[in-house]
């Protein structure tokens, strides 16, 4: 096999990946376009009000380009979205993109910490369950992750607040930081825990952490449930393979065989699971952030929804959708790079 061909195969794969990412993006914007333009609410009336004269109505209609064919309107919409123009939020009077960028770090901080908890806890538990298949440890872990699967996150959040904040006083309540500490640290990364460290404000840092710990443990548990379950099933199919028997027969320690050889082969599949978990954490933020009054993307979406701020809602939907698509793409790329079998006939 020539070097050129060895490079060409992954390139072709990545090319087709880009095409599918583009198509998915088109599909996403198509749906938000349909929601925004075609569905009952009359966008002209929303601007001019129902007392406007017919001339004003017509003028605004022309201004918005609503006299053009749908396909053309969609094209204009697409161009705007690609340039990050989601219009102005009715609620905050800022451009939607600015709003989104200012609330996103709060969500990112919460989701990242939860993901870390989920991965660090979930993978070992999944491996442990697979090794002890059918025994009580396995049953226990399986039942625990089933509980996590079935848990309404907003309810668990409320119970957590009731128990650990109101009754026991172990953690801080809703919000990212106590009101007294608001605006005390300059925004650098937008991640408050890191910003407070940069500013050298220890007190603020511990306060931020005490606000973070409850929501991130709850979301962390839910992702742990998913990661553990998937790890278990991936590991089970690995442990059935003959190479496991061969390495054991060669005299390698069972510990090494399980944690290095078998888990090593599972990593690639786990990357996809982790990417999906991260996506669902960003999405589930709508519920958690409502419960914890966490000023992130989810709460912003929810508030805009009730202010009938369609620009903001659709902008937020596109943002979450794009993050989803990017995560999917990244996990595919990693898959292709790491697993030679996924590269096709090279």
């Amino acid at each position, binding site marked *: 096999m020539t070097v050129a061909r060895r490079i060409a195969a992954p390139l072709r794969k990545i090319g087709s990946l880009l095409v599918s990412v583009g198509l998915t993006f088109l599909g996403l914007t198509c749906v938000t376009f349909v*929601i925004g333009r075609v569905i009952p609410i009359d966008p002209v009336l929303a601007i001019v009000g129902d007392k406007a004269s017919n001339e004003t109505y017509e003028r605004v209609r022309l201004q918005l380009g609503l006299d053009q064919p749908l396909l053309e309107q969609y094209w204009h919409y697409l161009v705007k979205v690609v340039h990050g123009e989601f219009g102005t939020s009715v609620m905050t009077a800022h451009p939607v993109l600015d709003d989104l960028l200012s609330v996103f770090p709060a969500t990112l901080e919460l989701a990242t910490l939860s993901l870390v908890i989920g991965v660090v806890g979930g993978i070992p538990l999944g491996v442990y369950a697979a090794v002890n298949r059918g025994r009580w440890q396995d049953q226990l872990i399986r039942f625990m992750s089933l509980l996590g*699967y079935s848990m309404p996150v907003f309810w668990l959040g409320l119970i957590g607040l*009731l128990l650990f904040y109101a009754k026991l006083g172990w953690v801080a309540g809703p919000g990212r930081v106590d009101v007294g500490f608001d605006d005390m640290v300059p925004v650098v990364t937008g991640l408050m825990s890191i910003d407070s460290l940069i500013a050298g404000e220890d007190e603020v840092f511990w306060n931020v952490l005490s606000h973070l710990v409850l929501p991130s443990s709850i979301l962390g548990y839910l992702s742990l449930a998913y990661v553990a379950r998937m790890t278990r099933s991936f590991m089970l199919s690995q442990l059935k393979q003959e190479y496991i028997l061969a390495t054991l027969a060669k005299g390698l320690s069972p510990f090494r065989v399980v944690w290095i050889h078998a888990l090593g082969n599972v990593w690639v599949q786990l990357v996809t699971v982790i990417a999906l978990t991260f996506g669902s954490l960003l999405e589930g933020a709508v*519920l958690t952030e409502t419960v914890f009054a966490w000023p992130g993307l989810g709460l912003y979406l929810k508030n805009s929804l009730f202010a009938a701020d*369609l620009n903001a809602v659709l902008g937020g*939907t596109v943002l979450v959708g794009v993050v989803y698509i990017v995560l*999917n793409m990244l996990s595919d790329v990693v898959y292709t790079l790491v697993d030679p079998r996924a590269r096709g006939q090279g």
Partner: protein
Amino acid sequence: MSVRTWLLDPAPASRRQAQLGGWFRAWLAFRRNTLAMTGLVIVALLVLIAIFAPVLADRTLAVQQVLEDRLQGSSALHWFGTDELGRDILTRMIFGARITLVIVFLVSAIVVPIGLAIGLPAGYFGGWVDAVLMRITDIFLAFPRLVLALAFAAALGPGIENAVIAIALTAWPPYARLARAETMTRRNAEFIQAAKLLGASEFRILATQILPLCLPSVIIRLTLDMAGIILTAAGLGFLGLGAQPPAAEWGAMVSSGRQVLLDQWWVATLPGLAIFVTSLGFNLLGDGLRDVSDSRS
């Protein structure tokens, strides 16, 4: 000969006996699985409660506002206490089972046919039909479910129907993929070729030969999915986008109890417990069904 030995006969005399025997063996395997049986009991109880709700409780108590009785704790009259408008919480939870089941049923009734209609032809015909249909499926698969449901609810207005449409729109892709995979493993089977030689149309082959074989795995997947559907629906209700007041929807009940969480904890937590137990029941049941079908193959 008892029914049991007839069912377990290793040499069944008729097609019907063989089929019933197969079902019976699956049931025996399923019955040994304690967790799965727990799930079955929970789901069966839920269905019974929903059906007999008017017998179990007085419908007027679910909506009637008795402001003098608001936010009462547990008592002989109100087992689970009353909410902020003086309505009996247990009664509302009982009627809430109906709303939950209706949502689950409607979503399934939309999702399964769409999934099959896309997955069967994709798997059977292959080629460009497959490429186009699966590309569409992938696009929908990459959509954030809850957020899209939010956007829909925002545009169409809140309500059960719109919540159902929003959930269904994002829930069908896995069924299309599943149906496609099942179809692909069978499209070259000999009985399909036989049907072709007999002159059966492609539609007929898909509908009468392949569809019935896809159904078991689709049903198992559906049972597992129902927990997720219930959670999404409850989440929409919690955000105020599902069933509208005064309907007794569990998620909305949790949300209204939030205001008084610290003093009257039962108002928010008990309906939430109902959501949790129900979704756990479906998860346990689905898990058990999958185990049984795995051990048979």
